[in-house]
């Protein structure tokens, strides 16, 4: 057992679960999607990205790229939300909410890919 491996798996999985938690619910209903959860998803996703830095293996490179995709989606979602809440005249409308949640849906796919890759790698090692 290796603390680094535990942390690595933990953050990748946590990024997925938080992402999923935020994503689930009616797509255009702000009550079903928590701000804090999106924030947590972003932070955890960033941490997962940094943990993947500097891995020279092929699978490490693919893991890093899926993570970067997830970061990009989540940050885009946060920016859309921030714009709707602070700049737009109507506040967070259901249309704005829908685009935030669909962006996080994209991140969810990337995170799923990350976890699948992690599982494949683990299986290969444990054989």
């Amino acid at each position, binding site marked *: 057992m290796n603390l680094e491996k535990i942390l690595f798996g933990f953050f990748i999985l946590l990024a997925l679960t938080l992402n999923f938690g935020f994503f689930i619910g009616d797509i255009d209903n702000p009550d079903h999607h928590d*701000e*804090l959860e999106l*924030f947590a998803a972003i*932070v955890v996703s*960033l*941490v997962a990205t*940094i*943990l993947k*830095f*500097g891995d*020279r293996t092929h699978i490490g490179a693919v893991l890093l790229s899926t993570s970067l995709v997830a970061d990009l989606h989540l940050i885009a979602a*946060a920016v859309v939300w*921030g714009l709707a*809440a*602070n700049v737009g005249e109507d506040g967070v409308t259901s249309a704005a909410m829908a685009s935030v949640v669909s962006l996080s849906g994209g991140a969810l796919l990337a995170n799923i890919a990350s976890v699948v890759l992690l599982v494949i790698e683990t299986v290969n090692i444990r054989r």
Partner: protein
Amino acid sequence: MAEVFIIFFRRMRAPLLVLIGAYSIAIVGLVMIPGVDEQGNPWRFDFFHAFYFVSFMASTIGFGEIPHDFSALQRMWTVVAIYLAVISWLYAIGTILSLIQDPVFRRAVAHRRFIGRVRALGEPFFIVCGCGESGRLLIKELARRNIRSVAMDAHQDALQDLELEDLPFEVPHLLGDASRPELLNTAGLTSPNCRGVLALTSDDHLNLKIAITTKLSNRHLMAVSTARTADTMANLASFNTDHIINPFYLFADHLARALHAPKSHLIYRWLVQSAGKPLREVKTPPRGTWILCGYGRFGKAVARYLNYEGIATVVIERDPEASGAPEGAVRGRGTEAVTLREAKIHQAAGIVAGTDDDANNLSILMTARDLKPDLYFVARENRLENNPLFHAAGVDFIMQSSRIVVGHIVSMIITPLMDRFLRQARHRDEEWAGRLLEQIRQVGEGFTPETWSVTIDDEESPAVLGSLAKGLDVTVDSLQRDPTERRRLLPTVALMLVRDDEEDLLPEGHTTLRPGDQLLFCGASGQQGRMQWAQNNEHVLHYLVTGTERAESAIWRHWLADRRRRRETGNPAEAD
């Protein structure tokens, strides 16, 4: 590029994690804590404003309490957040600074930059392995002729010295073992612009490996290598190294030539030496017994060549048995009067101070001069920086390994015609050499001349090709005439004409040129540029060949023809 990024992010992992942690703690705290605005309404940070506030707070820019004045609890949390964030930033910046100074990282960056520079060269270049005295001198000589080079050396000091040289353009250089194939590849071995690899390190074995790598990766690439032992020379020759240079043999050969053909030797000196130096006569070495101090690789080469010339030598060597000195060798260094006397200095004609230590060589010279001032002094100069000392010591013949090597390489690869000329000139007698020396003396006006080659082709002399096609009789000396006054000859000497792969030394002035001819000239500095007038401008060449101006436009042509006709019909008054 990849290495630089990987090293950077690997090192930045911990500081980035700390930063993200500090930011998220500060932001979440601010979002949670309730505040009261100026009207007494409760409010809370949203994530956007919290991130905004933390961003300027953490970087210590501090715009103030935005958007409303804070409550006491918010201020307490801000204090915590300030310390968290500022310390994390210090940690991150500290890591970046130490990373920039890290030798591994710097090397990765330098390597990356080197690859980029080599790729950007875009013109023919040579790879110079070994940036010692010879390597630097060679790079300088190449640069003077506008030829690019790429340098490699295993020692940082040598590369730093190279960087301090005053060169017209930047020479990309790499720290590393030049015999490693992948490093040679990054230096551009596989680049289509690479013209050859010059192995000039002080280690024979290393040179051998460099030459092998070069020949294996591209058979047609030129490989030049220095070698200091016969063993390595044979080894290098076995896989077709293009040029193998042994500075000791070269020098001994020059010395021997100075003995039996002093004038022919002087031609070599004057033409190969860099142009614009004062012409110096060389005292002819006397025949008689010579004393040889030091019987290493240098001493052996000199002894061999002197013996060819039928000159007896007395060897002074510190360890005669180990160095395999001939019988009758005197044990000692030669720096003391005792050993010199034992070697019968009073009967000697010349002395060679050939140890590998400059101080010892100078000491030998001084001692010998005290004992017998009229000796002929030959000295081996190991380091160029000691040159003024050797000149002050009044040495008649100085052996500078790096100058010999560089002069040889330059004449071989940069001016192959020169090399050909010198080879042919060796077979001529002293009378011929004497006449040529006199000509060089006249054109150079007391300085060593420049040498250059001219090919009669589309690129170098379009005017000559054009005029030949029109049936004009362009001769060698028509190129050498002064473009402003054809009766005057430019101070130049036509050294050689190569036609159909055959050399014609000192061609006659009235030899008619043919397309494809190659000519080698020497002359005072600046004459090459004046000669190019005739090579490039048909009107100038027409004037030089025929002595008449050719009209450049139709009206002028008509007017001139008219004038000429009138003059020919014998009516000078009307013509004027």
